[in-house]
């Protein structure tokens, strides 16, 4: 196994661990964190792909940057919804 294949397998493993944790966890915050772990797995795959040539591939790195930004936005939205789900009935936002 080359170093490249090893790293790709690592990325996929992180994705699978994140997805399984996301599906099995009961706690909502834990599920949001697991989703972030899963997305880190995909980002690792993209970053490893960027190192294939002699020079780093800027396109793949740009994709990772955008992906991280999107995941941050989604995490924010998810946490806001978690707060509303777990708010006591009388405190729920209008």
């Amino acid at each position, binding site marked *: 196994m080359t170093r490249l294949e090893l790293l790709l397998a690592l990325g996929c493993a992180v*994705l699978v661990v994140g*997805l399984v944790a*996301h599906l099995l966890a009961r706690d*909502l915050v834990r*599920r949001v964190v697991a*989703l972030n772990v*899963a*997305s880190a797995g*995909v980002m690792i*795959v*993209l970053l490893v*792909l960027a190192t*294939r040539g002699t020079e780093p591939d800027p*396109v*793949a790195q740009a*994709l990772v940057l*955008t*992906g991280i930004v*999107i995941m941050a*936005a*989604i995490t924010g*939205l*998810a946490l806001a*919804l*978690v707060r*509303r*789900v777990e708010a006591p009935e009388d405190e*729920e936002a209008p």
Partner: protein
Amino acid sequence: MSALLLPALVLGPLAAGAVAAVVPRERGRVRAAVGLTTAALTALACAVVVGGVATAPGHEVRVALAGWEPPLGIVLRADAASAALLVLTTLVGVAVSVTVAVRDDAGGGPAFWPLWLGLWAALHGVYVTQDLFNAYVLLELVTVGAVSLVALGKGRSAGPALRYLFVAVVGSLLFLLAIALVYAEAGTLDMSAAAGRVAPGPLLTAALALTLVGMGAKMALFPLHSWLPVAHPAAPAAVSAVLSALVVKAALVVLWRFWVALAPAAGGAAHVLAVASGVAGSAAVLWGGLMALRQRRLKRIVAYSTVTQVGYLALVLPLMAPGGEAARAAWSGGLLLVVAHGLAKAAMFLAAGVLTAAYGSDHLEDLRGAMRHRPWVVAALGVAGVSLAGLPPTLGFAAKWQLLAAGVESGQWWWVAALLAGGLLTVGYTAVVLRAVSAPADAGEQAPEPPPAAVPTVQAAVPLALAVAAVVLSVLAGGLAGLVADTAPRGLA
């Protein structure tokens, strides 16, 4: 002219959404005015682009942004499929905007406008993008907009919204991995350029499977559908209409485009995946139909009906596989079905919204007498149901006819059985709804029902207008199908 308008279709509503967001929340009328103006301008721009596509050689309008061609730049391209979706989005979008403008409540308050305009922009982007990563970003934008809109619903809508967000993001991550695999293989993100550079093998098969599962989750394809009957009814009425008619289709379009571009290179593996999609679709048709028959709330019936119709759309992949005449019929039938289902489902959810506003509930028991008090709204429900079931003279009939023709043409009769069974089930749950609303209001020993609350006439007329559009467009179905079939993909053969 239409090439210049392509970027405007995406950037216009996006800018208007930003403007609506900075208008103070208390100035709801101003936000509505911004929304309505945008809807009118968008409709105009869509008409020009659709006209451009119809008259352009090869039925295609293409623009490389800022003059940069791929692989450096990003290309926007509107073809016949984009045109069909733009027509649908314009009709539903204008109907929804008018509904919320006359009755703020239908959209869930002033936060509706910025979110809806942003969502509209993202939908347009999905229809015209040629770039895989762009498709991913735009789908995420669609998800964020749709989830936030669900959360505007009354009562405890945050739970269903969060569940929807989780499923949609998992789907997107799988799709992003598929994009990474395609990029690793082809070295480009442009879909048509990638088509020529991929070779059959485990990487391409994995990319197709990941896209099928990821987009299947996002469009609620059986067995990944369980979030939809929870999330769609929890949303405000106008939002439910947008979700069922348009948002589900965004994931579907990405799946179809990805499939049409890359599946032919994958050989036998693509056939297996197409059959898997067909099996899931057939199961969705039967399961969704049976569950719809068992529901006692109008909005949940309509939501389960969406599960059924997504099943039909998944059947297009195996029907298209043999290529030739069958692929043409399946492709044009699928696109007509997207339009027919969008119009019918938007009409049904908006009608359900009117009835819920009038009777204070969407329980079938509480809607007794609606036929007498709100005949036009019930008529909209009926006509939309007829179109969904695929009976003439509606657009739904034209669409299902094409799909049946594709099944018969290619000798795949087992998919035809699913198509026909689904039609019967649709007639069944439409009849359940019509029977409930036509029961006399003072049946039984209780006191006569209180008269329904007043609803703006315009809001009550919008669902009927959409349902009538589904009938009127059937006259044009031949031309539309011809336009679409001219650019049909060649199948997997």
